[in-house]
């Protein structure tokens, strides 16, 4: 990483022609990827990302530059050129005294992945592959992927913040394909954590592989999903992606600061069903979406977003905080030095309720049970969303009758969350990558089972 004296000179250069705040972000990341197909390693790669991002604020506008060249002279020149572009009057900062930001690290890795042999990593994939293939004769193909990264960050700014952290993340992907005639269906799981190699000692690899295989095999029997408006029971875990996409993004300052989006100006108002309470909690130990400090050096927090249907807070970064007159909530994140940070989610959860999943199904006359959700997207301006159902079943007269494929849930986030009439007691988180303007970042979603009284289901069945 860089020497404090160098960082100070760069920050002062960044303010030499104007601007009222400057920040340096240094990233050095080592990652390892191994992919396996049919039990053989297909590709193995590793590498090092390295770069320095410099950001200047003047008022609520910003300038950003990044470079992979760590030479001090180059950095000072880059910072000065950026400052010049601000075209403001001279600034008066002469020195900066750094105060090291101390925190108790909550997400320490027990076994550093960099000291684990690559063959041990490969063996994890071999085991997953074996269990998925052995699960059923219909399984024709298994793809698995191993991933770990160690990201060292340094964040220093003209207010004297000096914060350093090491983030170790581990994740594995299992995709199983079941074949029957020319029909192919897939099942997929991808657990991850902010942990080292000990992650694999705590995982039940067999159960994971079998759950991916099970989805694929069950979907072979599936009929095309009938379309139309109907009640939908969305089960726990990755089902939380709907709240993440449909509501979470609307609560990011990025969406709120300009007065756009469905939740701008709605603090203290009822914005979703009174059955729903939701938080964004970056402090949960070793979770995939957790942080010790955000990418502006602010400690992560547990932020209450919604309490019993009432909007309680937003996710705010420094820059949007200026626009909104609010403090940062420790929510500023970026994929890498190549992105200026902005307000993003960490672990975004709908909290557990009192209803039982069995009762949700038993009290539904005709509807869809979405057991596992796939990905989706949302237009944060309008709140309109769409999500794929990876594994789904029709509910008829209170019972699950047959599996369905090709189902899509579409609707409007605001409306859908009003239409939640039952909230389950079976909370579970799920891991994902969230793509937005500051890049692709690890996040958790999570929820108990929810019943939406009416939702549009897309599908080609009759």
């Amino acid at each position, binding site marked *: 990483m860089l020497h404090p004296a160098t960082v100070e000179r760069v920050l002062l250069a960044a303010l030499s022609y104007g601007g009222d705040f400057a920040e340096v972000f240094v990233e050095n990341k080592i990652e390892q990827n191994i992919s396996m197909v049919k039990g053989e390693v297909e590709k193995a790669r*590793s590498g090092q990302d390295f770069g320095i991002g410099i950001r200047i604020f003047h008022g609520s506008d910003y300038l950003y*530059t990044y470079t992979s060249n760590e030479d001090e002279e180059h950095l000072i020149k880059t910072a000065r050129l950026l400052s010049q572009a601000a075209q403001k009057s001279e600034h008066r900062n002469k020195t900066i005294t750094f105060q090291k930001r101390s925190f108790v690290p909550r997400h320490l890795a027990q076994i550093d992945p960099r000291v684990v042999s690559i063959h041990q990593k490969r063996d994890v994939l071999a085991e997953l592959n074996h269990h998925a293939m052995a699960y059923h004769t219909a399984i024709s193909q298994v793809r698995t992927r191993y991933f770990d990264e160690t990201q060292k960050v340094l964040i220093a700014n003209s207010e004297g913040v000096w914060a350093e952290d090491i983030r170790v993340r581990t994740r594995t992907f299992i995709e199983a394909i079941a074949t029957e005639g020319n029909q192919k269906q897939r099942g997929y799981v991808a657990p991850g954590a902010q942990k080292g190699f000990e992650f694999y000692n705590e995982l039940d690899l067999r159960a994971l592989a079998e759950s991916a295989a099970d989805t694929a095999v069950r979907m072979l029997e599936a009929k095309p999903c009938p*379309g139309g408006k109907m009640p939908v029971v969305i089960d726990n875990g990755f089902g939380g992606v709907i709240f993440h996409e449909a509501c979470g993004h609307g609560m990011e300052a990025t969406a709120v600061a300009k007065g756009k989006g469905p939740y701008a100006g709605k603090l203290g108002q009822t914005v979703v069903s009174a059955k729903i309470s939701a938080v964004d909690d970056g402090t949960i130990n070793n979770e995939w979406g957790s942080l010790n400090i955000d990418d502006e050096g602010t400690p992560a927090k547990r932020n209450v977003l919604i309490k019993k249907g009432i909007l309680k807070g937003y996710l705010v970064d420094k820059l949007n905080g200026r626009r909104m007159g609010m403090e940062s909530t420790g929510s500023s994140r970026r994929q890498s030095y190549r992105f200026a940070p902005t307000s993003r989610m960490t672990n975004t959860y709908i909290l557990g309720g009192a209803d039982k999943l069995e009762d949700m199904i038993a009290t539904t006359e005709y509807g869809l049970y979405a057991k596992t959700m796939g990905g989706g*997207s949302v237009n944060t301006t309008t709140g309109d969303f769409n999500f794929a159902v990876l594994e789904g079943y029709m509910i008829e007269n209170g019972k699950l009758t047959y599996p369905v494929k090709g189902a899509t849930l579409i609707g409007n986030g605001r409306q859908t969350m009003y239409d939640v009439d039952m909230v389950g007691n079976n909370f579970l988180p799920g891991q994902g990558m969230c793509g937005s303007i500051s890049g692709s970042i690890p996040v958790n979603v999570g929820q108990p089972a929810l019943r939406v009284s009416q939702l549009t289901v897309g599908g080609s069945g009759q």
Partner: protein
Amino acid sequence: MIQQLFELAEKKRIAELEVLTNQSSNFSVQAYEGKIESYKKTNTAGLGVRGTYQAGTGYAYTERLRPPEFETLLDMVKDNASLMKEKEPMFQKKEVGNWHDSQPDLTEKEKITLALELESQARLAEEVSDVSYAMISSGESTRQIANTHGLNKIYRSNYSMAYLSVIVKRGEEVETDSAYYIGDLSKLDRVKLIDEAVGKARRKLGGKPMPVGRYQAVLDRRVVCSLLGVYSGIFSARNVLQGTSRLEGQLGEKLFGSLDLLDDPLSGHERILFDDEGMDTSTRYLVRDGVVESYLHSLQTAAEMRQAPTGHGIRSYKGTVQIAPHRLQIPNGTTGLNNLFTEITNGIYITDVQGLHSGTNTVSGDFSLAAQGFRIENGQITSPVKEITIAHNFFDMFTQPIKKADDFDFSMPGGHSQYGAPSILFETIAVSS
């Protein structure tokens, strides 16, 4: 630097080494409410290597381009190669070349002015309530690929682009849409760009669902391009070999009605002269008159299938070799778009789809996508439609008779591949709401 790497590789008993470098500098400005809200200037370089060590091939990359890092880099190559039972073939010919495509570029000041003017002008357009993005960006990049067999090819190019995204509002209802321009910014027609983004957003206002059913449907060229993007993977020989493409064993079979589908690497926003393994590219039909003519190959899949390589090995310096098309396109039709509408008594014109990465099954070909568009009744566009889904199957949709409009264009550049198509009329598509 590359020579240094080759020498170090030899010392480390790495039998073959391929080096891919990318150096780029980019500039972008975004205007908001009459000010430059974001100003971004970047300068990066990265280096990726692929090496043969013992029986296998290993990959590694670094963004710290300093000789002290090269030691670690090549050790990573060896470590990764030790997991592989087979090696990936490398380009064996001593081909060298140096190309430079240069486009006129504005000065930084001119670009800032342009962004500001674009934003303030867009704000004045009817029913525009906000401008999400008024952005001018430009960049230059140099890509080099070299290996220890004497390959050494360099390509340098630059681009300039304007992008506008607007929000329109009528009563409580909001809609958004965007438009882009790529090329010489001094020739940018701001009015046209604003009209396009605002026009597309405004016409969606007042949209309503329509009755569930099967309809004649015109898919706008943007929608066709999106579907091509999602389903182009079925032509990848890698997917064929792995059993995840339904085109396995289908070369020479008439699967797609009367469709023509070709890859022309010299078309689109930037020429692709050679792939990321050093192989020269060429124009190639994947489907001609409905018949599957070719898969897309890297050197490795070509060797495995004993077919000729096609120059579709794609990688960034960070990644491994993947297979992807360069400029995949359905050639233009001859009928005006409005003439296609006149053939429809009760149907739909689909202009937007969402959920491409979740609502599509690339193995089965099934897709179910949230969509927006317009009802077509008795040959005329009548009212906007939203909150519907359209469902079909990519393998089945071209077996019905299709009619192509004459409005061919490419999709917005992003990533390596770019897709081109005209709008197309399909006899039946399932709509639900």
